[in-house]
C-alpha cells in the first residue's frame, strides 16, 4: 500500500520516441527514473472571472518538506485542492506520485494523505471510529487497520481518549487526530493545509516536531501551507512564496534570504525620504521606504552602523531608532511584494472563521 505508485505519466510516455520502450515496465520505473513527488505545470484555476491560481509551475522531490507561503487569499488552498483532485484545474497539468491529477484521480487519491484547512472530522464519532472509518474507506484489512490505528493514536498522544467523542476534543487534539488519520493509509505524499492554525504555540511546536519526525523516519513528502513564516523557515527544505495566485519566489529559505542582500537594517526617522537619499551608498544592496522608516539590506551590517549614524548626523537628519536583524522570510516576502504578510490580522481572521464554524455546530 505504501509502495503505491502510478506508472509513468502520460506526458513522458508520449515524449518518448519509441512507444515500445522497455523503460515503461513497472519493475523499472522505481529507482531507475527519479520521479518528482509532485510536479505542476502552468496550473491555473479561475473562479468565474477571478484568477485564484495563475499558471504556477513547480516540482517537489520525494522526501522533501515543501512550504507554500502566502497571505490569505493567495491561492494556497486552491492549489492543494487541485493537487488532491478535489478541484478541477481550469488549465495546466500536474502529477502527484506519478499520477496525473486529471486522468488518474484514483491513483492520486491512493497516494496522498491530506489535512484540510477546515476541520473534517465527524464529531459525533469517537477518535477511534473516525480512524476506523478512514481505514475502511482506504480498504485496509481488519487486523492491520486495528493495529495501525492504535499505533498512530499513541503517536499523537490520543491513546487514552480514543473512545471519547470528538466533540469533546480541544482544537489541538482534533488537529492531531486529523494528522494521524491522514497517515493511516501510509501515503507517499502528505498535504497539510494550515495545520497549526488557531493552535497555541506549545501545541504548534509539538506538531511540527512530529511532522518533522514523520518526514525523517518514513520519508514522506510533505507539502504544507502556513502563514507563520518562522515555522516554515525552520521546517521546510524549500519554500515557494505565493501571492495573488502566482509564485513570486521559490528556493531554500536561506537562498531566498541571501537574495535580499545580507542583513536588514531599519532606520526610523522623522524625515525618512531625506534619510533614504543620504543612505544610498554603494555598500547598500537594497533600499526601501516602508511607512516611517528606511529599510536597508547590506552585508556585515554591524560594521556599517557607525557609518550610517555619522552620515545621517552630518546631514542633520534625526534618528528615532535603529535596528539590525538577520533577514527572515518575512523580509523576503516584503522584498518581493512590497507588502507585509500581516501575520497577525490574517491569522486573527482565520481563527475567527474557524471559531465561527465551530459555533455553528
Amino acid at each position, binding site marked *: 500500500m505504501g509502495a503505491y505508485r502510478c506508472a509513468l505519466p502520460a506526458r513522458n510516455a508520449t515524449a518518448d520516441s519509441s512507444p515500445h520502450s522497455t523503460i515503461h515496465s513497472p519493475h523499472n520505473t522505481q529507482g531507475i527514473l527519479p520521479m518528482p513527488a509532485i510536479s505542476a505545470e502552468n496550473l491555473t484555476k479561475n473562479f468565474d472571472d477571478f484568477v485564484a491560481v495563475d499558471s504556477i509551475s513547480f516540482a517537489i522531490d520525494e522526501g522533501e518538506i515543501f512550504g507554500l507561503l502566502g497571505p490569505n487569499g493567495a491561492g494556497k488552498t486552491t492549489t492543494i485542492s487541485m493537487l*488532491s*483532485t*478535489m478541484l478541477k484545474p481550469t488549465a495546466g497539468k500536474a502529477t502527484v506520485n506519478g499520477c496525473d491529477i486529471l486522468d488518474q484521480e*484514483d491513483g492520486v*487519491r*491512493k497516494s*496522498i494523505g*491530506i489535512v*484540510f484547512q*477546515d*476541520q*473534517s*472530522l*465527524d*464529531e*459525533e*464519532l469517537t477518535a477511534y*471510529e473516525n480512524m476506523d*472509518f*478512514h481505514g*475502511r*474507506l*482506504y*480498504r485496509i484489512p481488519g487486523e492491520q487497520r486495528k493495529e495501525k490505528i492504535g499505533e498512530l493514536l499513541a503517536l499523537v498522544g490520543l491513546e487514552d481518549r480514543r473512545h471519547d467523542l470528538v466533540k469533546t476534543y480541544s482544537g489541538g487534539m482534533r488537529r492531531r487526530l486529523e494528522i494521524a*488519520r491522514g497517515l493511516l493509509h501510509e501515503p507517499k505524499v502528505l498535504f497539510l493545509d494550515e495545520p497549526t492554525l488557531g493552535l497555541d504555540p506549545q501545541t504548534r511546536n509539538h506538531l511540527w516536531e512530529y511532522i518533522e519526525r514523520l518526514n525523517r523516519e518514513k520519508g514522506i513528502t510533505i507539502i504544507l501551507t502556513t502563514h507563520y513564516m518562522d515555522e516554515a523557515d525552520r521546517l521546510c527544505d524549500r519554500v515557494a512564496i505565493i501571492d495573488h495566485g502566482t509564485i513570486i519566489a521559490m528556493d531554500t529559505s536561506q537562498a531566498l534570504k541571501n537574495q535580499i542582500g545580507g542583513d536588514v537594517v531599519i532606520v526610523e526617522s522623522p524625515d525618512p525620504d531625506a534619510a533614504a537619499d543620504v543612505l544610498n551608498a554603494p555598500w547598500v544592496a537594497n533600499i526601501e521606504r516602508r511607512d516611517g522608516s528606511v529599510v536597508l539590506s547590506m552585508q556585515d551590517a554591524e560594521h556599517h552602523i557607525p557609518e550610517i549614524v555619522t552620515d545621517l548626523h552630518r546631514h542633520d537628519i534625526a534618528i528615532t531608532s535603529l535596528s539590525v536583524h538577520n533577514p527572515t522570510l518575512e523580509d523576503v516576502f516584503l522584498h518581493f511584494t512590497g507588502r507585509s504578510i500581516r501575520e497577525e490580522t490574517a491569522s486573527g481572521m482565520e481563527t475567527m472563521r474557524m471559531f465561527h*464554524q465551530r459555533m*455553528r*455546530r
Partner: protein
Amino acid sequence: MDIIYTIWLRNIKRYLRSKSRIVGSLGMPLFFMLVLGFGLNSVVQIPDTGQGYFEFIIPGIVAMSVLFTSVFSGIQIIWDKQFGFLKETLVAPVSRLEIMLGQTFGGASTAFIQGLIILVLSLFIGLSLSSAAGFVIAFLFMVLIGIAFTAFGIAIASRMEDMHGFQLIMNFVIFPIFGLSGALFPISSLPAWVQPLTLLDPLTYGVEGIRYGLTGASQINPVVSFIVLTAFSGLMTVAGAWLFRKMSI
C-alpha cells in the same frame, strides 16, 4: 460493498447515538396517531371496508414517519458538506456511487427503524396483528419508501448550498406529498379533481402497500403498488447518484 457498508455503518452509529432525534421525530407521528386516530375513531368509518379510522390511519402514520426520517437523512449530507466531513469521504479512492448508495441505505435503515417504532407502539395502543406475512409486506414497502426518499433527499442536498432551503422543501414538497398520499383519507372519498394528483403521488403506493400488509385491505392492488414504488425508488436512486456525482464542494 465494503465501502457501502462503511458509510452505512456511520449513519447507523450516528442515528443510534442521537437519542433526542429519535424521540423528537416520534412526536408528530404520535400526535397524529393519538389525536386523529382516537379523536376521529368514533366519528369516522371508512366507507368500503368498514374499518375504524384508527386502523385506517396507522399505515399512513408509519409511512409518514418513514418519509420524514428518510428525507431528513438524505438532506443531512448538507451538514457533512458544511462541517467538512464530506471532503474526507470524497478525497478517498472510492467512487461517489458507493458513497451515495451507502448514504441511501443508511438513511433507509434509520427511516425503517423509525417507522418500526411507530408500528410497534400502535400494536400496544390497539392495532391488531393480522398475519406475519402481512408484516413482511408492510416492511418491504417501508424499506422502499425509505430508499426512494433518502435518495430524493440526497438529490436535493446535492443542489443546495446550506440548510436554508430545507424549510422550503419541507413545506412545498414533503408536506404535499404526505397530504396527497391517501395517508389520512381514503382515495375514493376525495373530490374527483384531487384523485389524479393522489395517483401521481408516489407515497400513495407506499401507504397503500403498507395498508394492505397491515390490514389486508387496500384500494390499489398491492402488486401495482409494489411495481410503481420500486420503479420510483430506482428512479430516485439514479437521480440522486447522478446529482451527487455532479455536486461540487
